[in-house]
Every structure is written in C-alpha cells, then in structure tokens.
C-alpha cells in the first residue's frame, strides 16, 4: 500500500516534464517602421512557403498590431526559423506561451 504514492508522483513529474518539452516555441515577427511591406511579404513567402494572400495577411497583422505569429514548433526548428528571419533583416523572436 505504501508503494503506490511514491510511484504516482514520479509519473506526474515525468509527465509534466514531457508536457513542458512538448510545448511549442512560437516564432514572432515584430513591426519595423523602415522595412518595406512588400519585402516582408516576399520574405514570408520565401521562407515559409505561404501564398501571397496569407503572407500579406501576416504582414498586415505585423503592421497594425505590432507583431504576428508566423510559425511554431520544436525549439531547434523555431530557432532556425528566427535565424533565417534575422538573416533577411526582419525582427523576430521566439518564446513559449
């Protein structure tokens, strides 16, 4: 009878760790007053394969709301996405909710 309580919390901890690891990292593009709108649309299409309408919607969200979520996933992939956005001159960060 004493064994169960010591096992159950360990499983909870493992499960919490797994949940934490699985939480996706969000890639956010931030507004910049100098960067051309047409260039932002071009970069989003080039890097993420969006069609023009989707890339334009995201660009307008960045412009009007100050930022937009453009991708999410595992940390390594999100970090690589941010690095590619930085290489193209866009302001981008990654974070988890």
């Amino acid at each position, binding site marked *: 009878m004493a064994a169960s309580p010591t096992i159950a919390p360990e499983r909870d901890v493992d499960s919490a760790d797994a949940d934490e690891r699985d939480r996706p990292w969000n890639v956010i593009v931030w507004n910049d*007053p100098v960067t051309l709108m047409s260039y932002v649309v071009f970069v989003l299409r080039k890097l993420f394969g969006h069609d023009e309408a989707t890339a334009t919607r995201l660009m307008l969200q960045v412009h009007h709301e100050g930022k937009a979520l453009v991708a999410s996933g595992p940390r390594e992939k999100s*970090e690589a996405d941010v690095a590619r956005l930085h290489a193209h001159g866009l302001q981008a960060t990654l974070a988890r909710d």
Partner: protein
Amino acid sequence: MPGVRALPGGGVRVRVSLSERTLLRTLAAELEPILAGSEDVAGAAQRLYPRAYEDADAEAEYRDLVGDDLVGEHLAALATFRRTLEAGATGRLAWTSDLDADETAAWLTTVNNGRLVLGCALGITDERAWDDVGDIRDPKNMALHYLGWLQDELVAALAASLPSP
C-alpha cells in the same frame, strides 16, 4: 529605362543611372564597418543583429550559435554587391548589369541592410517618425527613399519566381 526586371533562372537585370551607381558604391563602402561591428550608427547594430530571446542566457547561447554566421552572411552579401557593382556595362547615361540568383539575393540583403542603417541614422523608430524625418533633400533621406525604390523593384522582379504553394 531604369529599374529591375526578372531574367530566366531567378536572376535580374539592373539598370540605374551613373549617379545612382556612384551612390550605391558609396553606401556599400560606408556599410562595411557597420556590418562588421567596428562602427555603430545610432543603434544600427541592434537593428541589424536583433535579439532572438528575452532571456539573457538563452540570448547569449543563440548569439554564440549563430552570431558569427549572421555577420558572415551580411558581409558576404555586401562583398557580392560591391563586386557586381564593378562589373556590368557602362553606357553614356546608365549602368546595366545582369545578376544571377545568388547575386540578386545578395543585392536584396544589402539594400535592406542599407535601409535599416539609414533608418536608424535618421531616427525612424516608429511609423510617426516618418513625418519628422526632415528635408527630403538631406542625403541620408534621399538615399533611404532611393533604396526603397530599388528594393521594391528587386522584390517585384523576384516575387514572380517564387513557387506557388
């Protein structure tokens, strides 16, 4: 007619006046120490190499991982930009050059970096700052607007070659 038009294979033909070519040469020379980090202009370094993380430790790790590569990519693009500016055909009034896909990407990167630095130098930190940017005849202001036109031309030419999803 000045401007940029797409060529088969992802490249472009650039045609600009001789004075515009001189301006591009000057801007490229001024950009090099700023990209390399040996000079800073009004916080341009932070704009050229922005943070990826709010957390200081994660940011330091990111900078260790990709910082040198980002600087190297920007400098390599600038070197290609400067090399191609010395090639091409010079006419009585205009200079014309055919760029391949990689050279075109280098132009787009460098023109964008030039605009970011000029924007910092002019204090354009938010949309409203455009109203207070001053005399359009100011050389930095003129250069910023000129590079905007050139970048828009490059984007329009390249956008047509993007694959449809």
